C-alpha cells in the first residue's frame, strides 16, 4: 500500500471537514473581526444532537436504513445549531459590539466553556459512539484505500461549499454580507440591516458546522463533549492559513491543513530520526498557525486583512 497516497487521501478527507468548520470562523471574522471561539463547540453540539436523534430512531426501530437515520439526525442537528448560534450572537456578542476588542473575545471563551460543560452534563463525560449503520464499502485507487464514507464526506463538503459560494456571490443576502464585511457603516447607509446580516452569518456558519460535526463523528465513529475544542482550533488555524475573512481561503486552508497534518503525522518519525512520533500530530496545526501569523498574517489568499492585521 502506498503510504503517501493513503495519507494524502486521509488528509483531504479530514481537511474538507476542517474547511467546513473554518468557513464559520472566517465568515464571522470577515464581518465582525471576532474570533468566534465557541464555533468549535457549536460543531460538537451538532454531532451530539445528531447522535441523540440517531439513537432515538434506532431505539424505536432498529431496522431503519442507516443512511436515512443519519440524514434525519443531520436534519435535526442543523436547525438546532442554527438556533444555538443565533442565541449566542444575540445574547453574548451583540451587546459588546462596540466594546474594546478583548471583551467579546473573553465572552467567546466563556460561551465555549459553557457549551462544553452543558454538553458534558447532558451527554456525559464518556465518548458517545456513532453506530455502525452507514455503508462501509471500500475502493482502491493508486494503491490506497478510500471508503464510501470518505467519498461521501468529500462530496458533501464540496456541495456545502458550493452552496455557500452561490449564496454569497449570487443572492441579495450574500451581497449584503459582502457589503457589511467591507464596512458596516456604509452598508447601513445603503439600507442593509446589519444586525440581521450578522445574525444570518452566524446561522449559516452554524448550519455548515452542524454538517461538519456529524461528518467528523461519523468518520471517527465517536463524539465527545471536548471534541469541538481541538477541531475548532484547527479549523481556525485553517482559516488563518487561507487568509481569514476570505471564504475561498478557508476552503483552501482547511484542505491544506488536513494534508499537512496527515503527511506530517505520517512522516514525523522519519523526519526526526524517530525522536518525535505521530502523537505530535496536533502540534502541526499550531505550528502552521504561528508560522502563518508571523510570516504572512494575511494568509495565502487574504489581501484585505493585511491592512488590518
Amino acid at each position, binding site marked *: 500500500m502506498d503510504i503517501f497516497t493513503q495519507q494524502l487521501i486521509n488528509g483531504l478527507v479530514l481537511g474538507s471537514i476542517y474547511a467546513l468548520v473554518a468557513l464559520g470562523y472566517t465568515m464571522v471574522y470577515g464581518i465582525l473581526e471576532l474570533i468566534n471561539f465557541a464555533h468549535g463547540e457549536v460543531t460538537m453540539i451538532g454531532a451530539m444532537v445528531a447522535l441523540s436523534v440517531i439513537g432515538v430512531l434506532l431505539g424505536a426501530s432498529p431496522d431503519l436504513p442507516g443512511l436515512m437515520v443519519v440524514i434525519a439526525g443531520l436534519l435535526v442537528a442543523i436547525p438546532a445549531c442554527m438556533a444555538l448560534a443565533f442565541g449566542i450572537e444575540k445574547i453574548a456578542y451583540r451587546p459588546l459590539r*462596540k466594546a474594546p476588542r478583548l471583551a467579546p*473575545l473573553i465572552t467567546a471563551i466563556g460561551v465555549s466553556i459553557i457549551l462544553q460543560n452543558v454538553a458534558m452534563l447532558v451527554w456525559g463525560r464518556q465518548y458517545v459512539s456513532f453506530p455502525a449503520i452507514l455503508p462501509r464499502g471500500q475502493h482502491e485507487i493508486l494503491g490506497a484505500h478510500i471508503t464510501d464514507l470518505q467519498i461521501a464526506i468529500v462530496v458533501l463538503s464540496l456541495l456545502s461549499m458550493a452552496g455557500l459560494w452561490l449564496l454569497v456571490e449570487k443572492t441579495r443576502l450574500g451581497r449584503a454580507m459582502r457589503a457589511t464585511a467591507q464596512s458596516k457603516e456604509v452598508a447601513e447607509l445603503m439600507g442593509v440591516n446589519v444586525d440581521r446580516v450578522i445574525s444570518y452569518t452566524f446561522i449559516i456558519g452554524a448550519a455548515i458546522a452542524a454538517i461538519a460535526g456529524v461528518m467528523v463523528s461519523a468518520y471517527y465513529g465517536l463524539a465527545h463533549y471536548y471534541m469541538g475544542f481541538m477541531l475548532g482550533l484547527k479549523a481556525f488555524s485553517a482559516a488563518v492559513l487561507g487568509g481569514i475573512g476570505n471564504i475561498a481561503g478557508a476552503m483552501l486552508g482547511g484542505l491544506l491543513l488536513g494534508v499537512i497534518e496527515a503527511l506530517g503525522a505520517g512522516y514525523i518519525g522519519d523526519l526526526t530520526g524517530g525522536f518525535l512520533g505521530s502523537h*505530535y500530530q496536533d*502540534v502541526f496545526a499550531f505550528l502552521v498557525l504561528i508560522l502563518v501569523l508571523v510570516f504572512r*498574517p494575511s494568509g495565502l489568499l487574504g489581501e484585505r486583512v493585511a491592512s488590518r492585521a
Partner: protein
Amino acid sequence: MRERPRLALALLAVLLAALPFLIGTGLGNSWVRVLDFVLLYVLLALGLNIVVGYAGLLDLGYIAFYALGAYLYAWLASPHFGLHLPFWMVLPLGAALAGVFGVLLGAPTLRLRGDYLAIVTLGFGEIIRIFMNNLNAPFNLTNGPQGMNLIDPVSIGGVSLGKSLEVAGITLPSTYLYYYLFLAATLLVIVVAMRLQHSRVGRAWAALREDEIAAAAMGINTRNVKLLAFAMGATFGGLAGGLFAAFQGFISPESFTLWESILVLCMIVLGGMGNIPGVILGAVLLTVIPEALRYIGDLQRATLGQVVVDPADLRMLLFGVALVAMMLFRPAGLLPSRQRKREFSAQDGVAEQEQASLYDTKA
C-alpha cells in the same frame, strides 16, 4: 492620619500570620491546603496581570511558564535525574528559564494584534503541553502523561517544609509551613508589581496599552517594552510553578492545560484587570468557590439521597457563565482600576484606538 494606615497594616499582618490557624481550626486542615493554592494562584494572576492588565497583551498560553518552572524544579530536585539541588538555586533558575521562554515566545508574536496574539500564545501553550505529555520517549525527559513524582520539598536551613514542624509545643503541619513561604513570595511579588506599575516602565506599558502609535511617537521602543512585559509575567509564572512542584511533590501535564490559563485569565477579568487588589480578589474567589462547591455534592446527598450533578462538573460551567456575565454587566471587574473602568465603559473612540497598532499604518 498617619497612625491609621499603620495600624491597619499591623492588623493585616497579624491576620495574615494567624490565617492558617483560624482556617485550620474553623474549617479543617484541608482548607489550609486550599489557602496555599489561593496564594499560588494569586502569584500566577499577578504575573499574568503584568502582561494583560498593564501592557494589554492577551496571553492565553500563560500556564506554559508555570509548567516550565514546575518541570525545571522537578528535573533539578527529584530522583528523576538524581539531582537534588536546594530550592534557593532551583526557584530562581525556574523563574529565569520561564522569563527567557517568555522572550523567545514573545519575540515572533509581537507584531500581531490583540486577538491574533491570544491565539498564537494559546498555540504555544498547547505545544509546550503536548511536548511535556510526549517527551518520555525516546529519551525520558518528562515521564509523559504519568508525570514526575517524589519531587523534593522546600527545605530551609535543614528544616523540610514537607513534614510537620514542632515549635514551642505547637505542631505546624506542612501546609502551614508552605503557607508562610507562599505568603512571603506573594508579598514580594505584590511589592514588585506595585513598584513596576508606578515607574517609568509601568508608564510605558500603560502607554502601549492605550495607544501603541502614540507610545512609539513618545520614543518608547514598543517591541522591547512588550518583551519586557512578557518576560516579567513569565518570570512570576515560573516562580509559582517551582513552588507548586515543591509543594505538591508531583506534577503532570494535566496541571498545565489551556483551561488553567483561562482560569488565571478569569481571575484577572473577574477581579479587575490592572488593579492589584482586584486581581488578588479574583484569584481568591475563583480558588475558593470551586472548593466550596464540593459542599453542593454533600447537600445533594443529604437532600436527594444521591449526587445528581457532580459539583466538579459545575465548576467550569460556572466559570463560563461568570466570564460572560462579567463582560456583559461589569466588564471592568469587581474592583476595577481607575483606568480600566473608563476604558471598558468608553464608547468606540477608545476601542478604536486600542485596535490600532503600529503596523496598521505600516502595512
